[in-house]
């Protein structure tokens, strides 16, 4: 370029300058445009448009700001910007399902959303400002938002005690405990009990090697082609506690050899009196009499039997003890006699009570079990097993530890195995990158991992030692919820303070009561000061509720108070002395502080009061809708035929004032009775007396059919 032309602006340059300026301007405009088009800003504008179409626009937009909103809770480590888009979260008028998300209001829950933020419960990434980042797992944030179906897991992270509002979580925790998951895994809030599976130290004296083989191969559970869980071939809702292990033929043979050789602590042999055997063995009614006694003693309260009705086979009975349909083909008859007489001698931690047996009953019932509760085909698929060789026993012993059997089963000479499986007490806080997915074609997140592992342990890890379980879909989700809730110790002290711990309760009675209490295992079904089972009434305040004389009679001959119950208090054949010990202790110790049986004197009740009470009962309050007196009334509450002989007047008064103060989860509605009405109703109820039918003793029982329902 010549020097004189330098600095001279040519048209060409003008054009280049104009174009580049335009381009520059356009590039500059991209940024504000992109900012304007941001996801959250679109939601903000869309909310304004949405609010315009609602009748209460003013209220809906009162807190509106065009900026990012956030809930900041420094103590809890929460920065939640969710409310930037979820603008209607606290607007009561937007609670309806027809309101589109993200504007719908949060349903009313016990916590205030503004005080808790969102991610404490819903998880996900609180500070995120994009939909995908907030809800899904990203490389930088591996905890995606929890699907609503599993949300109760978050309740359980803090509420380690039981909550009524979270049935799915409670069910999951119950299943985890029932299936003895804590045998191999450390679980948050679920303690390892003293006994998980039975003590196998003398299993060789109880069952045959063939039966063990069958049990290990198919531990009762058979899943048919339709995916139904069956127990001994019968469909059931209950999952047997023993899971199915993947065992080869050699392993099966070795384990059965080892187990059938275990006879360390045999039961002392017991010989039923020859006179009884001679009197009954030829009697054609022996088996039917045995069945009658089996039913009269209410074995079915804890044990179930398969019953076929109208072509459908069902298990009927309780699930505290094992199902007994084919137990006659399982156990050695001599062992059965010894076991029934004294279960604790064989299993120190058993929950089975020590019944008071007469030789006659013992003979009849064991003969019934060995004759009727059998299946000749039970062991038909088991190959012929020769006497165990030393090599098999040695291998079996090794396998017993290697397969984790010793985690649940006690064995003489072996230390119990603890923590055989991985620690799951912080599983719910695990990131996807900490999990092994193997070759499984499932989404890489914690939820899918847990469900895949539970359904088929080898799908995510071919070398998994975990046995195979069969889950009902609802139960699988419940267990997943419970596992997701276990997030270990909270990361901040503010969160730590929010944890509602599970209350560990124990009840350690002493003296002669303790002996009888242990003998009859009252705690298997009843609760005492919060400790014990939940099958039968809580006895914590039984002394305030029931009269001592009634307790005595009831213990000796339990009558059901609720006509519809199928599971009843077993006939324990208690001696007078045992019954008196229990009745004395219950009436002296198990008292409610606010109910004093001595303050209400029955003498103050006049016939006029009782007549008024009867009218209130029948006309004004119509108590007969739930309670039965005589032949009429409802099934919901206990029958009151013998209310005067059963309840203490002080209890009736306190109960009528406020049933939930005495039994918190009682469904009897609390009503606003006046004091006069309470007195009148109590006076009426105290006039109700019905003689308890004389106890059917073993000798008498023979002539009567069962079906001795309570009441008339």
């Amino acid at each position, binding site marked *: 370029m010549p020097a004189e032309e330098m600095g001279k602006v040519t048209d060409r340059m003008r054009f280049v300058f104009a174009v580049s300026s335009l381009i520059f301007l356009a590039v500059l405009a991209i940024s504000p445009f992109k900012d304007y088009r941001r996801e959250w800003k679109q939601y903000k504008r869309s909310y304004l448009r949405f609010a315009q*179409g*609602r*009748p209460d626009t003013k209220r809906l937009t009162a807190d509106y700001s065009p900026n990012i909103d956030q809930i900041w809770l420094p103590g809890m480590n929460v920065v939640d910007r969710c409310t930037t888009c979820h603008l209607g979260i606290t607007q009561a008028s937007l609670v*309806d*399902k*027809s*309101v589109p998300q993200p504007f719908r209001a949060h*349903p*009313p*829950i016990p916590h205030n959303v503004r005080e808790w933020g969102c991610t404490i419960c819903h998880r996900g990434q609180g500070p995120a400002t994009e939909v995908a980042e907030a809800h899904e797992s990203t490389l930088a944030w591996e905890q995606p938002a929890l699907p*609503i*179906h599993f949300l109760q897991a978050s309740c359980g992270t803090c509420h380690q005690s039981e909550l*009524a*509002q979270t*049935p*799915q979580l409670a069910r999951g925790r119950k299943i985890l405990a029932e299936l003895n998951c804590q045998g191999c895994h450390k679980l948050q809030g679920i303690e390892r009990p003293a006994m998980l599976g039975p003590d196998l130290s003398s299993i060789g004296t109880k069952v045959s090697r063939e039966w063990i083989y069958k049990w290990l191969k198919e531990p009762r559970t058979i899943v048919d082609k339709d*995916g139904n869980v069956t127990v001994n071939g019968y469909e059931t809702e209950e999952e047997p506690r023993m899971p199915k292990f993947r065992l080869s033929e050699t392993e099966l043979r070795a384990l059965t050899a080892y187990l059938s050789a275990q006879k360390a602590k045999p039961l002392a042999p017991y010989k039923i009196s020859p006179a009884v055997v001679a009197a009954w063995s030829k009697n054609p009614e022996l088996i039917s009499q045995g069945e009658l006694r089996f039913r009269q003693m209410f074995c079915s309260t804890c044990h179930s039997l398969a019953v076929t009705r109208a072509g459908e086979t069902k298990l009927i009975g309780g699930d505290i003890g094992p199902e007994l349909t084919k137990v006659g083909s399982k156990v050695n008859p001599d062992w059965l006699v010894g076991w029934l007489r004294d279960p604790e001698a064989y299993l120190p931690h058993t929950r089975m009570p020590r019944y008071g047996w007469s030789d006659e009953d013992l003979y009849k019932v064991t003969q019934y079990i060995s004759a009727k509760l059998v299946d000749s085909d039970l062991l038909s698929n088991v190959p012929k097993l020769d006497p165990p060789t030393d090599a098999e026993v040695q291998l079996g012993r090794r396998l017993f530890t290697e397969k984790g059997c010793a985690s649940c089963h006690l064995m003489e000479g072996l230390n119990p195995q603890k923590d055989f499986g991985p620690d799951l007490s912080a599983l719910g806080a695990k990131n996807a990158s900490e999990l092994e997915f193997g070759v499984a074609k499932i989404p890489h997140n914690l939820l899918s991992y847990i469900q895949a592992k539970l359904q088929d342990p080898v799908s995510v890890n071919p070398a998994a030692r975990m046995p195979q379980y069969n889950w*009902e*879909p*609802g*139960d*699988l*989700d*419940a267990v997943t919820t419970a596992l997701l809730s276990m997030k270990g110790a909270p990361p901040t002290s503010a969160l730590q303070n929010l944890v509602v711990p599970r209350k560990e309760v124990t009840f350690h009675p002493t003296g002669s009561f303790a002996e009888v209490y242990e003998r009859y295992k009252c705690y298997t079904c009843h609760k005492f000061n919060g400790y014990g089972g939940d099958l039968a009434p809580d006895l914590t305040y039984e002394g305030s509720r029931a009269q001592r004389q009634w307790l005595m009679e009831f213990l000796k001959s339990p009558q059901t108070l609720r006509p*519809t*119950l*199928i599971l009843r208090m077993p006939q324990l054949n208690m001696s007078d002395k045992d019954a008196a010990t229990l009745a004395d202790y219950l009436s002296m110790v198990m008292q409610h502080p606010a109910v004093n049986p001595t303050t209400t004197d029955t003498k103050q009740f006049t016939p006029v009061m009782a007549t008024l009470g009867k009218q209130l009962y029948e*006309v*004004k*309050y*119509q108590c007969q*809708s*739930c309670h039965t007196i005589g032949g*009429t*009334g*409802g*099934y*919901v509450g206990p029958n009151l035929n013998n209310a005067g002989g059963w309840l203490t007047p002080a209890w009736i008064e306190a109960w009528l004032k*406020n049933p*939930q103060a005495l039994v918190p*989860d009682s*469904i*009897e*509605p*609390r*009503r*606003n009775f006046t004091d006069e009405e309470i007195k009148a109703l109590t006076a009426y109820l105290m006039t109700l007396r019905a003689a308890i039918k004389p106890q059917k003793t073993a000798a008498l029982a023979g002539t009567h059919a069962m079906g001795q329902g309570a009441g008339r």
Partner: protein
Amino acid sequence: MRILNLIGGAALATAVLCSWSGCRKHAEAAKTDPLWASYDSEADWTDSTKVTPLGYQQAQGKRVFYQYCVSCHADATPAGPSNRSNLTPVPPLLNDGGTLNTESDEFLQNIVTLGGSAMGKSAMMPPYGCTLSAEEIRSVIAFTRAIAQPPYQPPGRPGSQYSAK
């Protein structure tokens, strides 16, 4: 031309195959849907293949119903036989839309809170106002509305988005 036909045929076959396998997958999924057996859905009382999903409030209502109300307002209870047949007048089933759909939420709230006699109905319905919270009673009503047969239509406000979907 023949090649075109061939391609067309193949495409058609693929489409048919895809849609068929899609249908099959759907049918299988419907059978084992995990939501079915759980707390946040309720199977139709007369037709167990129909399942109603429940929201938070309705699910809480289901819980309260199965604890407090089921013995008289259902024909079967999880724990045993129903108490319904013992009562005169026979209480309505909770899913009885024919009876309950015409009652307002307010009326239902009152009859559960105050009992039948306070509302001119049978005294056999006891008051639950001292036992259940207002919120719990509201949730039971929400559950009633969810399972009603014939389905419940809320009284819509004309021209607003409040009316039912």
